[in-house]
């Protein structure tokens, strides 16, 4: 059993062909490896999740970008992808999932509803998941095509490659504050105002 060296062949010595050491910046090395081995935590709530599945399936093959493995446990995930609308009932759930994810972590808001509430300017719907958790990349579309999501992921990879250990804010956790909100109340009201095709109505209507 086992491999034996054939008679008369010395084999190839790697060291004779290339140097077996390189120099690089630690930043660049860490960022390069992080950007190319992102494990997504899929938080699929609606039709965007179908496009997300298409992105992960063979035709678009998310594995090409180091996302071979979906992480269905938040504790092993690097990037949370919220694919679909987020009702208020799910807000504490996505917040808990986000809090359970370990640094370094990033979030992608996929589609119009996750990014802004979309057409659902109603009593049930969070008007953009950035009022619940911090978001790194917004992917527009209703739903976005897989190319759109892949472009968003590539933007995130670009962002990761530009990160620096020296940035003191980089790994800061943005928790829910003492007033029970992630963002200041004034800011939430401002970003949740009706816009575009939203129903124009007063609060008393």
């Amino acid at each position: 059993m086992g491999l034996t060296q054939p008679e008369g062949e010395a084999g190839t010595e790697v060291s004779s062909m290339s140097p077996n050491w390189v120099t690089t910046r630690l930043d660049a090395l860490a960022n390069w490896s992080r950007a190319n081995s992102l494990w997504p935590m899929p938080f699929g709530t609606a039709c965007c999740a179908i496009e997300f599945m298409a992105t992960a399936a063979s035709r678009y093959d998310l594995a090409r970008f180091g996302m071979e493995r979906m992480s269905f446990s938040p504790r092993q995930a690097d990037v949370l992808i919220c694919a679909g609308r987020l009702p208020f009932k799910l807000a504490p759930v996505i917040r808990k999932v986000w809090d359970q994810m370990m640094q370094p972590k990033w979030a992608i808001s996929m589609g119009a509803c996750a990014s802004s509430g979309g057409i659902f300017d109603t009593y049930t719907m969070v008007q953009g998941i950035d009022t619940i958790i911090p978001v790194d990349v917004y992917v527009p579309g209703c739903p976005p095509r897989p190319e759109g999501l892949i472009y968003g992921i590539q933007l995130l990879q670009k962002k990761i490659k530009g990160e620096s250990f020296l940035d003191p804010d980089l790994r800061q956790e943005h928790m829910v504050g003492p007033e029970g909100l992630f963002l200041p109340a004034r800011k939430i009201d401002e970003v949740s105002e009706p816009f575009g095709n939203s129903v124009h109505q007063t609060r008393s209507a």
Partner: protein
Amino acid sequence: MGEATVSPSVAALRTRFGGAILRHQVSCGDTIVYVPAARAHEILAWLKDDPGQRFNYLTDITAVEYRDAERPLEVVWQLRSLARKADLRLKVELDKTAPLVVDSVFDLWKGADWLEREVFDMFGISFTGHPDLRRILMWETYAEGFPLRKDFPLRGHFSRAEQTRQALAANPEAHYSLEELSIAAAYDELPADMKDRLAHGERGRVK
């Protein structure tokens, strides 16, 4: 719509209950019967158990509030007889100025459980005799009112910040605990026939 399309159940109802059948109409081929709220349970029980009616399947319970403020709220029971392949719709009108209360039909059809909870959640109509009347779609601490009522603004009563604050303060696990969802934990409270089925499996009984 001719009189020919009226469900024969209407004539039977008028014979049995007389003046308690307020009026009937045919809409899109479906027969709608209006009854007083106080008699609804009695009439529904008769429709279910009478050998000539046998409306043994409760398709849906819902409610309607019309845009016209002076029109009353309606509670709707959609019935079907699986054996006779016949449908009937029963309606009750509720005055909006009085307490919105009707009798639960949970004792007639067990499937009424979640249907009545949904009507309660969305319209605020109480069902007397329901074993577990609490919100079903909105979370149980939801304090903004009843969303499908016409006086409910589309974006809700509270500001977005307040809605977000209340949502983040909610603890879903407190209400939908694993204990509540566990069949094993509820085993002792199950009826005897269900315990038997769980113990032996139903496969051998299906012919």
